[in-house]
């Protein structure tokens, strides 16, 4: 027996009816927001050469990737990320297109997770990338677009947190840890593991940078964090990144967004391609990171077209689930009319149905032989009216009583 013919792979699923409608509704709302900011849609292939993703700055672990080969034996992967393919497109096929480029996608990414972890391996994402633009203007646009995207989906209470890749990078660079120690530092700061961080930093000396790194995971919260960091970063190279975050946060305050945006200076991305501010989003009722993004000014150069860039991706599935739970996705109504024709009048029935559909009615062609069966079917499906086709020009509407 073909055991695997009847199930979907771990971490994937079929979405039926209401789930599908909710997903479409979320995509529609996001499209509206993205296009209102002037972004244009693109699609990239599900399959890409592995080289797109195995880079110095974005090292995808082999065990997280789904691999395949093309007909010449080259390694392909199902894309684990949407930013790298967009960077590739912007630097190659859109080489001649003038910056800034504003692109959006609605497409899944694929990441292997541990068996039975309950995570999705196919992650439905929507995202925007603003390419060839730098500075406060571009960063604010992206942040606002993210807030508007979450608001448009009527998501429950959400928060964004803001950090800067330059904070960790400048502090760590000054200490010159070896590659393994650096990776361990990232891991400890990312998981706010204070005891292990202490242990790692102890042999690196008592410099200002080491002390700042020690405090980094604790530096999260509102505006007060920035003031605290200012003192702590004195005498280190992290001041520039902090100064920028202060400007960014002040601008967000001016837009009255301080209630949905926090600071987390311990926000370090596993992906090393981020160069400037980084951010993540969380939503009530969902224990996972909902949204993730930031500035990546070095990535396009890796594909041959040096340019600044910034963007984010948001998981559309938690948004769709929340929308579904809120009851704001209307159930698909029953058809307005059931078209019934006895044998011999099939073609006529379809011609009549085309006319009715043209009038904007939702029709269903009855797949039965007798009027009595049609009546039963209509009753069962909650269809209020049957159009009985009796000849070329003869059609009679019959009301169905419940």
């Amino acid at each position, binding site marked *: 027996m073909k055991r695997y013919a009847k199930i979907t792979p771990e971490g994937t699923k079929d979405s039926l009816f209401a789930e599908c409608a909710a997903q479409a509704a979320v995509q529609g709302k996001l499209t509206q927001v993205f296009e209102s900011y002037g972004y244009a849609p693109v699609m990239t292939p599900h399959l890409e050469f592995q080289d797109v993703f195995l880079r110095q700055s974005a090292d995808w672990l082999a065990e997280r990737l789904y691999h395949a080969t093309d007909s010449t034996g080259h390694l392909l992967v199902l894309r684990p990320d949407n930013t790298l393919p967009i960077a590739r497109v912007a630097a190659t096929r859109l080489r001649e297109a003038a910056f800034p480029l504003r692109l959006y996608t609605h497409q899944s990414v694929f990441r292997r997770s541990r068996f039975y*972890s*309950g995570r999705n391996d196919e992650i439905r994402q929507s995202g925007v990338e603003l390419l060839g633009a730098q500075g406060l203007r571009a960063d604010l646009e992206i942040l606002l677009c993210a807030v508007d995207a979450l608001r448009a989906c009527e998501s429950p*209470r959400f*928060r964004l*947190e803001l950090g800067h890749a330059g904070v960790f990078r400048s502090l760590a660079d000054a200490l010159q840890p070896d590659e393994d120690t650096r990776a361990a530092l990232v891991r400890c700061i990312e*998981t*706010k*593991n*204070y*005891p*292990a961080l202490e242990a790692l930093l102890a042999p690196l000396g008592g410099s200002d940078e080491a002390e700042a790194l020690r405090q980094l995971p604790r530096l*999260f*919260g509102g505006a007060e964090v920035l003031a605290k960091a200012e003192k702590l970063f004195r005498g280190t190279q992290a001041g520039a990144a902090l100064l920028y975050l202060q400007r960014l946060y002040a601008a967000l305050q001016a837009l009255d967004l301080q209630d949905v945006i*926090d600071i*987390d200076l311990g926000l370090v991305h596993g992906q090393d391609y981020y160069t400037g501010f980084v951010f993540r989003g*969380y*939503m*009530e009722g*969902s*224990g*996972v*990171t*909902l949204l993730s993004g930031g500035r990546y000014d070095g990535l396009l150069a890796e594909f041959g077209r040096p340019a600044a860039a910034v963007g984010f991706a948001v998981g559309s599935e938690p948004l769709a689930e929340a929308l579904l739970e809120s009851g704001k996705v209307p159930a698909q109504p029953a058809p307005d009319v059931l078209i019934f024709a006895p044998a011999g009048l099939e073609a006529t029935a379809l011609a009549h149905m085309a006319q009715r559909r043209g009038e904007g009615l939702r029709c269903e062609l009855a797949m039965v032989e007798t009027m009595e069966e049609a009546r039963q079917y209509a009753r069962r499906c909650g269809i209020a009216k049957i159009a009985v086709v009796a000849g070329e020009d003869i059609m009679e509407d019959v009301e169905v009583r419940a």
Partner: protein
Amino acid sequence: MRAIRIALTKGRLEKRCVELFEAIGFDCSQLINKGRRLILPMNAHEVVLAKAQDVITYVEHGACDLGIVGKDTIVEADSGVYELLDLGFGKCRFALAGPCGVDFYAGYHERVVASKYPAVAKHFFEQKGMDVRIIKIEGSVELAPLLGLAHAIVDIVETGSTLRENGLEVIEEIMPISARVIVNKASMKLRRAEIEGLLSDLALAAQVN
């Protein structure tokens, strides 16, 4: 908004956790007389008791906001939760152990290592640049070298008396272990004030304990 949910590890750490919460003035009577209920009220919070691995799973998915679990399980699970506090109790260590008086590293033969913690064992030997065959064992790992299945074991060692009674000894320490407080990333951001309050109370109580 729902109550803060706390997942505690059943068994070894359970009693110490109750003492800790009592020390910060929580009413733990329901935890002590739990009967057959699975979700237990403790002041304004809800407590569940679970197997160590499940504590991490519940917290990682956000089904619970906060958990107390041994470092051993955290290392083995390699999950994406905040690990915020070392409570200082439940102390033991990961160690490589083998038959007394046998030099594990001598010779050029392939080594077989049995462990309940294959990821920890794998990482340990990876760092040494050693190729080792690892076999996962669910129960008493000490049996494996006695039965000739493995040359050594990687396991948690508390006092070392089980090892001694079976003619085994610690070959090398791998890492110290103690009880940790873990927090779901989204909870930490969305309910910061409540969770930070709880954490600072726990930190204080853990110091006094």
